[in-house]
């Protein structure tokens, strides 16, 4: 197990390095931060001074060598927009995003497991039809629209929750639900189909024949076996939330997290901040994958970690 984790960490290191290098090149191909960030009326000297300050006037190869050197110390330079170390900006924002994902994904899992299992007990039955309908509905909701809709209903019309921003627990509800609903739908559909598969297995019949009650079979065996694909999808949901969905949700709710910061970094052509964000997200993805592998092993000891 230890060796396995070490090996995966090494692979992950290569992935993060690769991603970061691609970003280094890509961000320098599109947009000139000196032009985007300074006012249209800025003089040529001002633009030159800006480029000099951030070392953008040097040859790309030289910038690259420096970049790699700084990478070793997690130094991504100063955010051009915020004018403080990019990693400081991220340190202030990442926890907010992780909290949001924890709330959203937690809610999605809590909804998906029982609903999916309920639907699977009698495929085609009333409960199944209702949950499948809701699931398809959830799957087809554009998150951006869902967020605004929830704001209009719960914050503007009924005034029971704040429209946006970060603060007390009430601020969590709408963004977490917006993040959770489509994920819950995807997860629920998966739980449903895997449990249906499991319930049709021979071992279920055997278990029933030897006198186990249905709930025991369902929760003790079928659901547990359905957990492996579920964990895979849940991990994927985490990654998608970190690398994508939170960008939308945080923008709609003015949530001061990494996703909103990524949007702003792109808007301001803040290369250094963008690099640091991509690097952080890449590390997050690698770590989640390793954790997932370990969880598989814990759930199903038959799985070999290679």
């Amino acid at each position: 197990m230890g060796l396995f984790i070490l090996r995966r960490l090494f692979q992950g290191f290569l992935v993060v390095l690769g991603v970061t290098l691609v970003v280094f090149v890509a961000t320098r191909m599109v947009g000139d931060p000196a032009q985007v960030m300074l006012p249209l009326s800025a003089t040529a000297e001002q633009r030159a001074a800006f480029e000099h300050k951030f070392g953008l006037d040097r040859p790309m190869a030289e910038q690259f060598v420096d970049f790699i050197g700084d990478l070793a110390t997690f130094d991504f330079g100063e955010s051009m927009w915020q004018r403080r170390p990019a990693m400081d900006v991220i340190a202030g924002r990442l926890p907010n995003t992780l909290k949001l994902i924890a709330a959203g994904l937690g809610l999605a899992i809590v909804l998906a497991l029982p609903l999916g299992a309920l639907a699977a007990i009698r495929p085609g039955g009333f409960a199944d039809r209702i949950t499948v309908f809701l699931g398809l509905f959830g799957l087809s909701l554009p998150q951006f629209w869902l967020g605004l809709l929830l704001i209009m209903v719960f914050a503007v019309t009924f005034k029971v929750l704040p429209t946006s921003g970060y603060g007390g627990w009430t601020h969590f509800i709408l963004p977490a639900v917006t993040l959770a609903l489509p994920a819950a739908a995807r997860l629920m559909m998966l739980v449903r189909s895997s449990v249906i598969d499991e319930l049709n297995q021979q071992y279920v019949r055997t278990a029933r024949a030897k006198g186990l009650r249905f709930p025991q079979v369902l929760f003790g065996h079928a659901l547990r076996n359905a957990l492996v694909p579920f964990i895979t999808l849940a991990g994927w949901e985490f990654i998608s939330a970190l690398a994508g969905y939170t960008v939308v949700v945080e923008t709609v709710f003015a949530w001061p997290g990494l996703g909103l910061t990524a949007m702003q970094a792109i808007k301001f052509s803040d290369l250094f901040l963008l690099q640091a964000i991509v690097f952080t997200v890449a590390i997050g993805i690698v770590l989640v994958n390793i954790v997932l592998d370990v969880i598989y092993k814990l759930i199903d000891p038959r799985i070999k970690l290679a």
Partner: protein
Amino acid sequence: MNSITKLLSRAALAAMVALPAMTAAQAAEITIAVGSEASTLDPQKRDDGGERAINDNIYETLLARTPAGELVPGLAEALPTQVDPLTWEFKLRPNIKFTNGEAFNADAVVKSVARIIDPNFASEQMSYFGTIAKAEKVDDLTVRVVTTGPDPILPSRMYWMKMVPATYSDDPAFQTEPAGTGPYKLSTWTRGQEVVLEKNPDYWGDAPSIDTVRFRFIGESGTRMAGLMAGELDVITNLLPEFVESVPKSAAVQGVETSVIILSTENEATKDERVRKALNLAIDRQALADSLYSGFALPTKGQLVNPRAFGFNTALQPYPYDPEQAKALIKEAGAEGKTVTLVGEAGRWLKDRELIEAVGNYWEEAGVKVDYRIEEFGEYLNQLFDRKKRPDAVFVVNSNELLDADREMSFAYMPNGTASSNNDPDLAAWVPAARVETDVEKRKGIYAQATQKAHDHYYLVPLLNMQDVYGFSARLEWQPRVDAKLLAKEMKVTE
């Protein structure tokens, strides 16, 4: 039993008495939404709208403007007097202190000037202050600002330069813990969330009626709208014109931005003056203002210069909408079916893509083919600033914060200006001459000549002067300003 009833009725009475008092206390706090967070609270470092919105309430300038845009004394006691063509003398108001206790005096002014023009400080606001050489103290309340050449716009420049304390401005803490002379001071700054300002109890001017001002950072316009409708926000900026009907209150004011298409006099497609004239006559500007901006934009009057700016030529007539003449001119010039490349971008300015495409449609109706090049912003800027290869037509929105025609002239009129596309020798001579002409009437005359010449030769296709549209909560009373500053001291709430 009886005593309980008494107690209850007393409590009810107390609550009734307390209620109006409580709403009055709430009324003294307002929340303003701005699109992006301030990157710093140093008022001299960045050119950043998020920073400006907050610091306009904390810091002050030697000269100020009325809501309508007229230049009036601020921290200076009166408008400056000219000692010689290069030297302007300011008399300062006495007994003013920064909120950290330092006195506002000649030393503070000298420091403010020296700090912002210091090349090592690399202020992004230098495009406003490029002509300033230094400031000299005459006595404690008298300062002279010296320019590198005659600079008639200096008073307007000093309306843009925020005054900082002489000593504390060197402290690194100054970037996050501001100290100004203004009506408000910083209470808290929670990064990513909000900045809270509270009334400066020692403010030298009239005390503002609002005690606490909360700035929240909400980039998404739909979310800002929702916040306003839910009663969480009192002021939102950049309200979309189509939402004006849905918000509790709104107000619009002539803004500093004007959209324009710059035509190249050197390119094959637009070299012929008849073509450039046709491209101007083909456009129904009023229809664009009404359909795209619900009327919250004014057709330009034959020039790019902001109508509130010094140098606006009142004698010029708007280009009429005459599609028949436009067609005839295109035919006459043999440009029928020829391609005009129209370079633009999408998303930087309100409905920019829609405006570009609508103008292109008018041009196609007049008989030319339009090659739309809606570029990514960085690539768009490359083409806008490219001095060697000018696009046939490039769309841009010019912003004139200083309200002086020199901005438009240097940007789009003068050959080799930031984004201009003509080679007119007269404009090449007049614009720099006007920049150093300190005789007000003479200077106005030069701008009249320059705008007339560009008008007659159709160097530009001026489009619309934008209005700034604000959304307010029902309780907020405020007259928005021409210079788009969000001055909380001018705001009031009614309950």
